[in-house]
């Protein structure tokens, strides 16, 4: 079981500590941890489980904040990691983002939340909807109130009814003026295009996000027109697993508000909506680079938010890059990001430039990988179609809405 949770800023400062059990963990462990980070470089930031001389540490880094948990005994490491992720989710949900100042400004709420989320090292209440009922998130009204009256309490006086019900994720006596439920398909395309320009792997990681504002205790069923496209699925705890096993129908009592109903993966897609073609030609110490971006298969909707990012190899000393569309930004750590935005109708964006190599180096022999991001509204590239959404016990006919969206996920083009 976890013994302690620390929140560290990106400079290693301990923002807060929450001791969870009687076996106190000294703050010194954070110094040890930060020293390791400093000596071993950032690669350690990506290692989730570290064994220090006295404790095992689990870390999750979100937006510069390190969530560090300590234990001394055997426990499932994924449990700790999942929990820390959950804490990070809840906090960023409460505070509208995560950064050092937000945590400092709202440290009391963070403490109160942590105290509800974990007790004696074992997770207690992690369902965001219930937490919201127990501890009110900071909002403009409460802020203004606190300035005017100097006093508001964000701790609820009553226990959320959901903790007692058989659907612990939902309040029993919800009343909404507007009865509405929205279903969003949010997909991310993971693709790898190898050096020869061949599509090595192309798959969709998607989530069915539901925003439910329904009164009472609604029982929903959601069915897909083509459930056979799914390769893998994972469900929110509210989904009844039996109907899915039998007819691949999602039957559930939704939590109130926004939640992820399921996530899925569709593998072996045949093509990507856009292409990125990088080219390098090197000669006597310099290297010409040209990158072409264009539409391969028109998805029917406009593609926007296109960015191409890559990191110049360490042997490149200077670079001069110019795009014919959008803007290029080269950061100190040699990361170049080319922001294209919306795909222009009339021309294909391209970027070209020269890279100067280290002295003594004739030609480039290591090549960067290009990360491509894009967004297509209104299309689920996996081809998944929602058939229908039914409400079993309608108090009044709800308003239903469906949307779809595809983004670039781990979309990588090797050069």
């Amino acid at each position, binding site marked *: *079981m976890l013994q302690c949770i620390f929140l560290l800023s990106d400079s290693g400062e301990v923002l807060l500590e929450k001791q969870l059990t009687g076996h106190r963990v000294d703050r010194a462990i954070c110094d040890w941890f930060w020293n390791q980070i400093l000596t071993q470089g950032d*690669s350690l930031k990506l290692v989730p489980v570290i064994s220090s001389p006295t404790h095992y540490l689990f870390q999750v880094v979100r937006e510069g904040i390190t969530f560090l948990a300590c234990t001394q*005994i055997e426990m499932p490491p994924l449990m700790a990691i999942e929990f*820390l992720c959950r804490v990070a989710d809840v906090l960023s949900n409460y505070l509208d983002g995560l950064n050092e100042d937000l945590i400092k400004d709202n440290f009391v709420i963070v403490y109160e939340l942590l105290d509800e989320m974990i007790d004696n090292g074992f997770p207690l209440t992690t369902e965001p909807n219930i937490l919201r009922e127990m501890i009110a998130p900071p909002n403009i009204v409460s802020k203004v109130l606190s300035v005017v009256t100097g006093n508001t*309490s964000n701790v609820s006086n009553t226990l959320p009814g959901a*903790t007692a019900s058989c659907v612990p994720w939902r309040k029993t006596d919800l009343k909404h003026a507007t009865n509405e439920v929205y279903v969003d398909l949010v997909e991310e395309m993971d693709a790898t295009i190898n050096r020869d320009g061949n599509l*090595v792997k192309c798959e969709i990681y998607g989530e069915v996000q539901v925003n439910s504002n329904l009164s009472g205790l609604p029982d929903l069923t959601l069915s897909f027109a083509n459930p056979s496209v799914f390769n893998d699925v*994972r469900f929110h*705890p509210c989904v009844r697993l039996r109907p899915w096993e039998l007819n691949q129908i999602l039957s559930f009592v939704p939590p109130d508000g926004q939640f992820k109903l399921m996530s899925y993966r569709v593998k072996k897609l045949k093509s990507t909506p856009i292409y990125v073609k990088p080219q390098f030609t090197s000669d006597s110490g310099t290297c010409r680079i040209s990158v072409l971006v264009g539409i391969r298969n028109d998805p029917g909707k406009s593609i926007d938010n296109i960015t191409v990012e890559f990191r110049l190899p360490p042997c490149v000393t200077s670079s001069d890059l110019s795009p014919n569309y959008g803007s290029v930004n080269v950061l100190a750590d040699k990361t170049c990001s080319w922001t294209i935005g919306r795909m222009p109708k009339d021309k294909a964006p391209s970027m070209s430039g020269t890279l100067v190599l280290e002295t003594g180096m004739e030609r480039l022999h290591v090549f960067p990988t290009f990360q491509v991001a894009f967004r297509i509204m209104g299309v689920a590239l996996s081809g998944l179609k929602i058939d229908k959404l039914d409400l079993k016990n309608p108090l009044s006919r709800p308003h239903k809405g469906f949307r779809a969206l595809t983004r670039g996920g781990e979309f990588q083009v*090797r050069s």
Partner: protein
Amino acid sequence: MLTQFGATAESLSKASTMMFRIGTDAHLYDDPDDVSIAPLLDSKFESEKCEALKRLLALIAQGFDISNYFPQVVKNVATQSLEVKKLVYLYLLHYAEKRPNEALLSINYFQKDLGDPNPLVRAWALRTMAGIRLHAIASLVLVAVGKCARDPSVYVRKCAAIALPKLHDLRLEEHTAAIEEIVGMLLKDNSPGVVGAAASAFASICPNNFSLIGRNYKRLCEILPDVEEWGQIVLIGILLRYAIAKHGLVRESLMLSFEDLEIQSQEKDDPESSHLTVRKPFDGASLDICTEIADIVARSYLEGPDKYLARLGHVNQDSLGFDGSCITSATSNDDVKILLQCTSPLLWSYNSAVVLAAAGVHWIMAPKEDIRKIVKPLIFLLRSSGSSKYVVLCNIQVFAKAMPSLFSPYYEDFFISSSDSYRTKTLKLEILSTIATKTSISSIFLEFQDHVRDPDRRFAADTVAAIGLCAQKLPDVSNTCLEALLYLALSESSNNAVALMGEEEILLVQVVKSIMAIIKQDPHSHERVIVHLVRSLDSMSAPAARAMVIWMLGEYCNIGVLTSKMIPTIFKYLAHRFHSESVETKLQIVNACVKVLLRAKVEDISELRLAISYVLELAKYDLNYDVRDRARVLKNFLSHCKGFNYLEEADYRTEFNDLTYVFAEYIFGGTKKVPSESFSYRFYLPGSLSQIVLHAAPGYEPLPEPCSFADDETGHSPTNVHNDHESNEIDDSDDISGSLDEENTSDYSSESVSGEGGDSYIASDSGEDEEAGTLIHLSDDAPDSGDHDRVSVKNTSSGLMDAGELMSKRALESWLNENSDSGQNSSNLSQVQRSLARISIKDIGQLVKPKSYTLLDPTNGNGLSVIYRFSSEVSKVSKELACIHVSFSNHSEEPMCNIFLAEEKPNPSPDSSEKSGSPSESVLVSHDKEATLIPMEEIDRLNPGQPADRVLQVRFEHHLLPLKLVLSCDGRKQQVKLRPDIGYFIKPLPMDIESFLKKESQLPGMFENIRRCTFSEHLNQQNDKDEPPQKDIFLMICEKLALKMLSNANLHLVSVDMPVAANLDDLSGISLRLSGEILNNSVPCLVTLTLKGTCAEPLEVSVKINCEETVFGLNLLNRIVNFLAEPPR
């Protein structure tokens, strides 16, 4: 708030940034103590209290110690405002342990809150009350938890379940039974939320009390999908352990694949049954199981890899071989079936930990064909979050090693993404090379080729290593690999020639290494590769790569025509370059010289000779001595064996039989045994922390012994016992059969063996004997009581969940050893303590006669006899000094002069014949620090028959080895040994019984050690002088015992208690309490003796020591037990 808006410009600018943070608690965090907090805390306004508490919380967050506000904060616990209450609770929990007395003040309010109609208030009160770790209120908390466990509110019941481990953590044995009873009750709860929390309580309190699970097994399985995710993780583990303990392993599962093969091979001899063992191909592809690894995995899961590896030296393959009773079948056993059924939907869970836990169950229990089910969910986990990816991959790696066919169709999912961390990348590479098959290898290679040009050269080098592994695994592709690698080597080496960077070298070296590994498998077909490599030698600059190429050259110099043709040229080149090579390469060149000469054909020798002798000559005068030495040795070889200098002689071959030639041939010739690939044999249960860190984390427990739990299907027999026994714990564990217990005890012994090496404290032989003694004592007990002992050992092993005790292995061990007794002891005590009478023993001090030892007897000392005894007086010089009375007496005819005792000088005197005849003490401790002696006054003259007394003062520093002294008498020096007595490393610490008990309660758990011994001295006395009836026999025995204690250890007798209700002859329950403090650090040391038995028999005395210095306490305990058990003289 207004204090923030000062008049200065600086604070104005601050104020402007404050605007964004307005209404938040930002100012409290930034300047928590800019107003004085104390008056705010005492304010009558809730808002001001609240602000003060927030400021305190900010200080806690920033790591300041603000426990001095404790009394003021505690007062506020009575508040009605929930927010203030919450903040007070947060503060209380943070500091309660530091300020136990003040914390007690809050208990009444908690008690009141527990009766509050608002369940939230009840739950908070319970959580906080249980979180205040005070022994004094433990029983109150237990009552509260018991009450809350029956609360109508689910949330309160859940909090009660979570509070149980907090209570258990205090290690109060008398509560164990009650705690477990509540756990059992909560496991039966209707609400899944409570069951989940109860499961976590079960796992940390009594993970091996399977009878609690057995009663509810089916229901727990059914409720599993509804339990919330965190509870699921724990519950899955519990159910798996139960199923194995109850039913054993599944015949069709992977765990028994090795046995399966054996059975098959046996059955194949038997023609009739052979048709049964034909395995159907599954999905067209046969199940490719690496049985060897699967077997290791299974054994590791069951025994823990440390134990398994320790045993590996003397493997007997049948040790896993169960008789049929320990094997069950997934198809016919309902319990196993339902477990698999209920865990399979969990593979779709959102929580990756749940998925992995469920996958673990299927991995261990499911029939081999059904394991496939876990693959997709596991792979899908890789997409969930970056942090869990690494952990999941670590587990997949093990699965893939044991059963590559599971993952081989999904090789694409392990393709590396540039956003992966380095560790993830290497793990993926390893998995890819494990699961590569003939069909997938070509696409995998395409991927690898891309990675070789990755800017991260370390990763590129790892890719090359993976290519090498694949080529070795799949000989079909080795040629393709080799060609690709060769191309890479050639292009890399040309790159290197231009820009040499440290990172670039890694890749080239790895390429050559991989090529070498592939060539080793079949050198003859790869001659051209060697030639190519050698030809590019000139452009290769990495010394390690050059060295390897030269090694290959020497090793394979005669495998083909091409190589032997180019050898002379190469050696000319090498001779030319020799001076500029690195040491590593030079050594290889010299080696290669010998190999070439040994293998070369006669006609080439003359050509080679010049170059080689030139090289050797150069090497002889090299700057590096290693190279010089080797050159000399090898030159000797050659000059002898091969007639190196007389090549023209026709008959040089006759000298081939020279011995040195044989040596050379032996060293350089011969086929090298390729060292098998280093393989990680460390497997831990899937999803465990130990599997990630690759060592057994404290508290890690392998799977229980299959079928070790025999259920009481025949109408709960233990309930009968239940009424008689006060302890539920014992009878619950009664139905666990002996095998499990054995497993556990043996576990400890192995641990203690491994701990021995690292311990500086217990090193000497007799120390080990002591250790062994306690262990034997544990297992050799009378059958019934011994059973209890072991049971409680096992139950305390559940306490491994507790973290504090795990800090020191030594402490833990000792605690485990000794606590076994305490379980029973405390139950005895609790029986007895109902009514006690205090016996006062007066004048005991005068009767104390410390034992004396001989330092030198007259026969050895030319008539001088020296006797010493430890004295109870406290040194005036320093409190760390122990006083020793030394009596000298002259038994000879002549007077003696200048008798003096001093510490031995560093140069030991040769005279060591003297051996003191004193009874062998427990010489336990060796310590780096030397004992020091305050010199005594010299005795000028000792006449015949005259005695003289002196006082020695020694600072022993816990040093238990004999102190070597030099006794000079009449100018002669003699070495003598003074044996320290740990009983006098302490001095009496007078205290009354109340403070004794209080102190004792503060030193629980690992600070408490118990051993038992028999005391029989009173028997002699009774027999000797027929007891006068008026003298109370109880008093007499107590006196005897106290005397024995006091004359052997420098303690203060605190009290002697006896039960009032005791029978006439029954001494059971009498307890003596003694106190002392350690000389050099004044740490209190409490000794309690508890008697058992009757007057007419040897008494069983259990000696308990409470001392913060655990090791010292243990040693003292051993000493006390030793002298108590000593026969009277």
